[in-house]
């Protein structure tokens, strides 16, 4: 009788712990940002939003902006150039975003190179995730 209850409780805790995990990746970027710039004073959702919406156009011609594939409103599902749906970037919509460091790093590397023509700085990455957490 008690077993299923414990299991349910356990699952509930895991599910609850899910979104919070996005926090483990931010301290890492924060440390990197501080190392790069000692005057760094924390991530900003506003800067993240501006970065996200900006028409950078310094990368590949096909992908001028993050919103080429992700939506201007990040709670909406995006779409790759090949027509595949991308789950919303907003954490409220896709709670398992920004958990797997390898995955996050892979996509920052690719998408930043495509859009900006360079790697993103730790501050840009942190701002971006901070912005998505508010969405």
């Amino acid at each position, binding site marked *: 009788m008690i077993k299923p209850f414990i299991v349910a409780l356990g699952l509930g805790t895991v599910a609850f712990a899910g979104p919070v995990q996005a926090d483990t990746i931010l301290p890492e970027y924060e440390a990197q940002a501080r190392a790069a710039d000692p005057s760094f004073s924390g991530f900003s959702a506003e800067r993240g939003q501006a970065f996200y919406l900006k028409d950078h156009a310094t990368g590949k*011609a096909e992908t001028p902006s993050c919103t080429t594939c992700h939506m201007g409103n990040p709670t909406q599902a995006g779409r790759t150039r090949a*027509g595949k749906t991308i789950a919303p970037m907003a954490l409220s919509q896709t709670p398992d975003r920004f958990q797997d460091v390898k995955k996050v790093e892979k996509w920052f590397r690719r998408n930043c190179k495509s859009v900006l023509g360079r790697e993103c700085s730790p501050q840009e990455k942190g701002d971006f995730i901070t912005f998505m957490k508010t969405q």
Partner: protein
Amino acid sequence: MRPLQQSEQSVTSVLIWDLPLRLFHWAMVLVVCVAAVTGYLFEDWWLDVHVWAGYALTALLLFRLIWGFVGSYYSRFNSFPLSIGGVRTHLFDLLRGRSDPKEGHTPVGAWMIVLLLTTLIGLVVSGFVVWGGQENNGPLASVISYGVGKGVEDVHEIFANILMGLIGVHLAGVLVETVIFKHDLIRAMLTGEKQVVPSGKSTAGLKHSVIGIVLFTVIAFGLTYWINSASRANEVAALDQIYKQACGECHMAYHPSLRTQSAWDQLMQGLEDHYGEDASLSDEVAQTVRTYLKDNNALNFDTEAAHKIGRINTPSLRITDTRFWQKKHDDFKDADFRHPAVGSKINCIACHKDAETGRFDDASIKLPKGIKYD
């Protein structure tokens, strides 16, 4: 005209065609119509209906061949009046405007049935070969190569055209007999009865109805079992999970049979500038993917897509730049590919439900609502 009073008096209704034979005949009419309409008139993606008609036809033919030995008297092949002399007399009679009512088949009618059955056997056998070879489908898929299947397609069409011709002659014959000579053959094929002087030869009866239906049921089950068990051996292996992860994030993961090894190698070397995007992978994953693509490149597959698309190199490395691809999709407008359910022409799986298997069966094409293809 002729002094027939004596026998005319004893003309009665005799059961000539046993029930299983009549059911066979009308089932055949239906199934051949379906097969002909889907084969001649419809788009390729009605192929599964066509093939189902072919399977039904196979069961019916097997039944008829056995029934030719164990059916009632007039269903048996040894009752067929096939002698050349008989045919000659019959033809001369017809030319002189005479045709006596016959209990069973007329000589010309009997030959017609032999020709129809032979053609149908050729049609069904060649159909299995094309289905197995060219479409890599059905029970013969693992035995027949693509090339053989492709070659036999012409043979299948020739048989189909011969069949259409024979059916035309058959119908004309029935029309002549019915309208000119007033022998109601169609009614006879419905009720099984003819108005004749009984010769005592016909053995049709309830016993045959029962045996016939049991026999057909056994054949239908046996055939279904064979088709299912033989077809299963022929599934294309599922995509490697690591590959599917690595190359299926921005577009569907293409089946490795769609490019040659050299094309895959080139593509893997240029992932940092992959059609206007950075698609780079970690070295470890890249190595796994490279090996998988090499081991499963187009030369290792015998499907139509592997032959017509996979083995053809294009400077852009694109699947969609092969001539075969362009020819098959040239009726689409750009707007069709921008349809919300498609998004891009490289989203094969939006229209080809089996795209991940590399098969691209005609029968698996399902266009999203709103896209017209003609």
